[in-house]
């Protein structure tokens, strides 16, 4: 059901703690705005190269060209799961 979430890390249905005040670094899990929707991705940031990577390899990374606005909504700092 939740296919683009970095699958090794965040289980579906988790409650995420998202910090808006923090600047996103390379390898952070971020909530980004893409095509008017929220999406959960890992951020690739090396030099001027920026990309959003879905941990599910079936989805290709979204490379962002220079000047293309990258709306990062916030950085995921923790998540909470209810016990099964």
């Amino acid at each position, binding site marked *: 059901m*939740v*296919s*683009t*979430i970095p699958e090794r890390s965040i289980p579906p249905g988790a*409650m*995420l703690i998202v910090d*808006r*005040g923090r*600047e996103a670094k390379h390898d952070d899990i971020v*909530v980004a*705005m893409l095509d*008017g*929707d*929220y*999406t*959960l991705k890992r951020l690739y940031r090396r030099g001027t190269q920026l990309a959003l990577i879905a941990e599910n390899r079936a989805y290709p990374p979204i490379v962002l060209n220079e000047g293309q606005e990258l*709306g990062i*909504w916030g950085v995921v700092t923790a998540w909470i799961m209810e016990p099964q």
Partner: protein
Amino acid sequence: MIALVDVNNFYVSCQRVFEPKLEGKPVVVLSNNDGCCIARSAEVKALGVRMGQPWHQMQDLAKQHSIIAYSSNFALYADMSNRVMTILSRYSPHQEVYSIDECFLGLDGLQGDLTELGWDIRKTVLQGTGLPVCVGIAPTKTLAKFCNHLAKKRPQFAGVCEWSKLDAEIQLRVMQEIEVGEVWGVGRRLSASLNKEGIYSVADLQQADSETIRSRYSVVLERTVRELQGQPCIDLEDIAPDKQQIMCSRSFGRNVTTEQELAEAISTYAARAAEKLRRQKSAAGALAVFICTSPFREKDPQYSKHVVVPLSQPSDDTLLLTRAALWVLKRIYRPGYAYVKAGVMLLDLQPNTAIQGHLFLQSADPLKRASLNNTMDRINQHWGRGTLRLASAGADHRWKMRQGHLSPCWTTRWEDVPKVR
């Protein structure tokens, strides 16, 4: 130096934070009962929609341009406001929260370039809340307001305008270009009267003779003139003064004709007003109730009544105030009218420590009553407004206002927390 920070199109911007798809789209927020526009996105302003324009009048326009409408969601706006104000409070020990979306900051004694500080404020608030703000910085509150207006309306300022950074020549020119009605404290009525005296622009008012202004208008307007000249006359109020009266009134979602339903509404408003009263630790010495029909439906029979009653003793007790309000309602209610609005007002407010007993005191043990009210407030704070209420407030509230386009309470209800995929 004083900064005025305010959020651009506050209500619309709050909606956009949690629905990125609204970016760049025309969005309006509607008043209670989805009556008229109380906030417009830039796209909607560009279509010529006025503030306060009735929603039903713009159905065609809305369809044609796919305008998206929201019912006002004050739970969301109040929470977002709180977040913005908390961030801004880091910038100065002197903060006056002036309204839900703007505050003054005292910047005296701060080191460094103030315009850069303004940019930092913009960036930090945007990053922390997703809301865009503009900053006006000037030696007086009135000029800070004016600079904020420039920062918002003129793209060359990029959202921050510092008065003392402008050349005298430019200061004069912008004051000449902008109508006097834009000045803080000069309303539409006052500006019409100023126009008759030949005062049209901000510059005209700034150059007016303050003595003449005082004798012809008021001390208040004289202070405005002095403030425009750069002389601080209006102090920052760090602590918002307690309200002198508390009002709780709403328009109904549909016509109400029965006394029973009016009583439910009055009871609900009285309880709400009493809650506000206790929050500011006041007691009311008098109470007013009003009910009215719609003045816009000229063919319908009209009735409106507003009655104030003094209380034998100041009180902050929901039970007592509700009983008093319902007593008034019983006396002013007339059958055969279609009521559209009702309200309760608490007056003659005083600190609740001043409540004194008197000879004919007949209420229940005041300490027990205080603890009952306190318990009720805590339950309602925790479980939501109206969880615990008097039976007279009724249950199904079919008279309640229409909110056909309400968005989720993204930040204040667990069920409404945004979902991400």
